[in-house]
């Protein structure tokens, strides 16, 4: 199976080295998309032998992932695995994803809503999870988890327009539209920075976008 791991990154010089190194130990094709970082993210990623693609300006996670996935597909990827650059995702979990990929089109990782997840994230995630089920009929524990795997054929269908964090939900919306087979896999997550990632404003924007995508279908 020609597996490509795509990691969008912005100002992650503290963690990108270990993330790339630990992923490279397991998988040959690792692409880091540097999304307009102002620190040494791309230098460190390249030092650890990742394929580094660089955005001249910051466009957002969704745009960065599209760049990486487009590149991977162009270079023959059969399965794409997307994960975060901040060491919240363990590359050793990828094997679970690949095992499930034998029978489905897309595998969603999910974080357990345990005491380590900041409260505001728990509330936001729960709300968006319910909204996803209401609008798209897709039942997921964690619609905002960025650890996922999908086939290149599925990528052509789920390829999103959103340049930002909304892409996590848009991917699900498109998966629902094309009735892709999916499954979930539990993952461990480490919350290192309580104030990073999707904010409350992002959550509101995602919720509004989800309604819009539903109407657009």
């Amino acid at each position, binding site marked *: 199976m020609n597996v490509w791991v795509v990691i969008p990154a912005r100002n992650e010089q503290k963690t990108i080295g270990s993330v790339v190194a630990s992923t490279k130990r397991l998988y040959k094709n690792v692409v880091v998309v540097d999304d307009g970082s102002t620190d040494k993210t791309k230098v460190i990623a390249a030092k650890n032998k990742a394929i580094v693609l660089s*955005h001249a300006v910051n466009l957002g996670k969704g*745009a960065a992932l599209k760049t990486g996935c487009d590149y991977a597909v162009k270079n023959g990827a059969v399965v794409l695995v997307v994960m975060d650059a901040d060491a919240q995702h363990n590359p050793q979990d990828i094997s679970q994803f690949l095992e499930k990929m034998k029978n489905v089109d897309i595998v969603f990782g999910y974080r357990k809503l345990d005491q380590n997840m900041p409260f505001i994230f728990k509330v936001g995630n729960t709300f968006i999870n319910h909204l996803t089920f209401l609008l798209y009929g897709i039942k997921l524990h964690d619609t905002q988890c960025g650890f996922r795997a999908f086939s290149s054929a599925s990528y052509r269908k789920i390829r999103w327009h959103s340049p930002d964090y909304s892409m996590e939900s848009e991917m699900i919306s498109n998966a629902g539209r094309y009735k892709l087979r999916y499954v979930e896999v539990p993952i461990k997550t480490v919350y290192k920075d309580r104030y990073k990632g999707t904010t409350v404003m992002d959550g509101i924007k995602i919720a509004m976008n989800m309604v819009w995508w539903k109407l657009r279908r």
Partner: protein
Amino acid sequence: MILGIQIVGVLFGLAMLYITFLHGKRKEFTSKEGIFWIVAWVGFIILVVFPNVLDFIASDLLNISRTLDFLIILGFIFLIGISFYNYVLIRKGQKKLEDLVRKLALKK
């Protein structure tokens, strides 16, 4: 119309005429655009000084008792329209930027 509002309106119109003239001198828009905006601001000043000009539209056609209310409604419609226009322009610009940045990144 209340005199105070008329004075403010005229001063605003004159200020906008001057700003339009400055931008035109710097060739920041075409002469057609410049003429359009000058006509718009002069028209605005005329309406502020002679609001009765609009009475037949406001009261007879649309049943709006005060011309000032009519101008405020027009103002809101204009703002909403121009907001939508700006939204479309920004979205177009975002898409072009994204496509260009991706093209440069994938040149590798």
